[in-house]
């Protein structure tokens, strides 16, 4: 049976130490700029912090992956090129890229640097994946959250590269790298600016016991007293159409695959990605410890679903597209 690699988020140096100490096999992070898809205020790593993180993780046998996973700005690719050069100089274990220009640059300039294809590239079929492997020597592909487990199995049979799938956290119902929904009302998108629902456009308004969540002055949701809340993302908004109020795309919910780990292993998946570089140390500790247990149990042939409703958006979780029944 394949041993699943547990890839964990680190938004800050302290979160990295927590992830390493809690049982991560690899930790991923980004620089404090627009080169990574979690460009949130107060978050991410400076170059010296990445250097220290490498010492800490490598000293404990844990890999470090650097996400440079936004698309280089037209006319000014310098920050992205610099990020790739720094990653190579500091000897990260792999760099996670989406932009084909950057993949080409990394391949040509730093042939020893291991390349992972970011989910932002949205490569979801064998032809596209084989192209990235052939042209840029990509060693691992992070699959978009739109495939079912049988589809992942078929895909793995037709490619010769490691696949990584999302295991826990933000449940993005759109095809990654293709979604510009938030830019229609905020002018910013995850693909170009590294932010979906940027904090600068978010406001939380208490109306008595009710909570109203706004994005750029549009009301995304209203939660009644004691109703579990979620982030104000457009794809998880509650809207009124034809006198009916409800969730059009997706409810506030989080992905959790602890219950289907044996199926993912059987489908040939190599690594599991925990989402949440923007979340706290407490989140990283609990999720990583639980997944460590679940993976070790799965390797012993056990199936162990571990609910983590306390950390989940809307207080509920889902296996998302992996167990899709509506198509």
């Amino acid at each position, binding site marked *: 049976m394949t041993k699943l690699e547990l890839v964990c988020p680190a938004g800050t140096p302290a979160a990295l130490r927590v992830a390493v100490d809690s049982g991560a096999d690899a930790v991923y992070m980004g620089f404090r700029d627009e080169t990574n898809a979690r460009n949130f205020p*107060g978050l991410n790593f400076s170059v010296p*912090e990445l250097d220290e993180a490498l010492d800490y993780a490598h000293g404990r046998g844990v890999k470090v992956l650097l996400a440079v996973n936004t698309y280089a700005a037209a006319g000014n690719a310098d920050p992205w090129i610099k990020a790739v050069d720094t990653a190579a100089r500091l000897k990260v274990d792999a760099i996670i890229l989406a932009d084909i220009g950057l993949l080409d640059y990394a391949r040509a300039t730093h042939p020893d640097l291991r390349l992972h294809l970011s989910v932002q590239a949205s490569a979801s079929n064998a032809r596209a994946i084989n192209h990235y492997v052939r042209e840029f020597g990509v060693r691992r592909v992070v699959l978009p959250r739109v495939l079912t487990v049988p589809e992942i199995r078929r895909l793995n049979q037709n490619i010769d590269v490691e696949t990584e799938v999302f295991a826990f956290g933000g449940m993005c119902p759109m095809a990654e790298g293709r979604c510009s929904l938030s830019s229609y009302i905020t002018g910013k998108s995850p693909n170009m600016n590294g932010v979906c629902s940027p904090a*600068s456009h978010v406001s*939380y308004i208490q109306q008595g016991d009710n909570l109203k969540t706004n994005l750029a002055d549009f009301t995304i949701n209203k939660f009644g007293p004691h109703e579990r809340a979620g982030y104000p993302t457009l794809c998880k908004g509650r809207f009124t159409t034809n006198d009916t109020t409800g969730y059009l795309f997706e409810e506030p919910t989080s992905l959790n695959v602890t219950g289907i780990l044996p199926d993912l292993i059987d489908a040939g998946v190599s690594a599991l990605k925990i989402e949440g570089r923007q979340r*706290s140390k407490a*989140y990283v500790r609990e999720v990583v410890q639980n997944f460590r247990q679940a993976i070790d149990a799965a390797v012993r042939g056990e199936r162990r679903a571990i609910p983590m409703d306390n950390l989940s958006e809307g207080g509920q979780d889902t296996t998302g597209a992996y167990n899709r029944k509506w198509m």
Partner: protein
Amino acid sequence: MTTSHQHPADDTFSPLLIAGLLTRPLPRGPLAALLRHISRRIQRNHPAILERLQPLAGRIFLIRPTDLPYDIILTIGENQVDFSLATETRPLPDADVVISGSLPELVDMMDGRQDGDGLFFSRSLTVTGDTEALLTLRNAVDSDEVNLEQEIFDLFGPLKNPAEKLAKAGGRVYHRLARDMTTLSRAITGPLSNRCRQLEQENQELTNRLDRLDKSLAKTRSRLQSLGRKAAL
């Protein structure tokens, strides 16, 4: 944004709320001294946090523990932070962000034992104001290992160890009391909540009925108008 000095009416019914009410007449001196100590320790021991906080220089956060009768003001300066106690005589400054929650949860969040987003999803934590400033503060504090509990015990000097033991025992008592309080609170408010839910349901049914009647009235009116027009012809 203007803030008032009143705590929300729906304060959590907890042991700390009662303890807070009992300690209200006590001098604020020791608590103010503790906050000054915490400010100094963060400045001395956590330069990485201060660096991440720099975009917030000049911002004011109001921390409102729902189970204590005190508000705490956090002011971010150039390479410094200042925690101070709001006093009844001094008017509260206009805060950029207001954070409300129970004291144990606020401390656990600051010490990295509780996830802030999780507390927000469960509605245990209330935040209003500048979300970007809030997020910057949260990420900055989370970027290093802050241990508020330890800072508090350090203040006890040679009595640190007994204080720690006492606090741990107190913590166990607190959690047991909190459970009892929740049970008691549910027992008191349960029947009322059920009645409220019932009334809400009845209200919803009446609203739906009214909507249906409105629609039917509109249809009847339109039919009558149409008949009227035909009769006129």
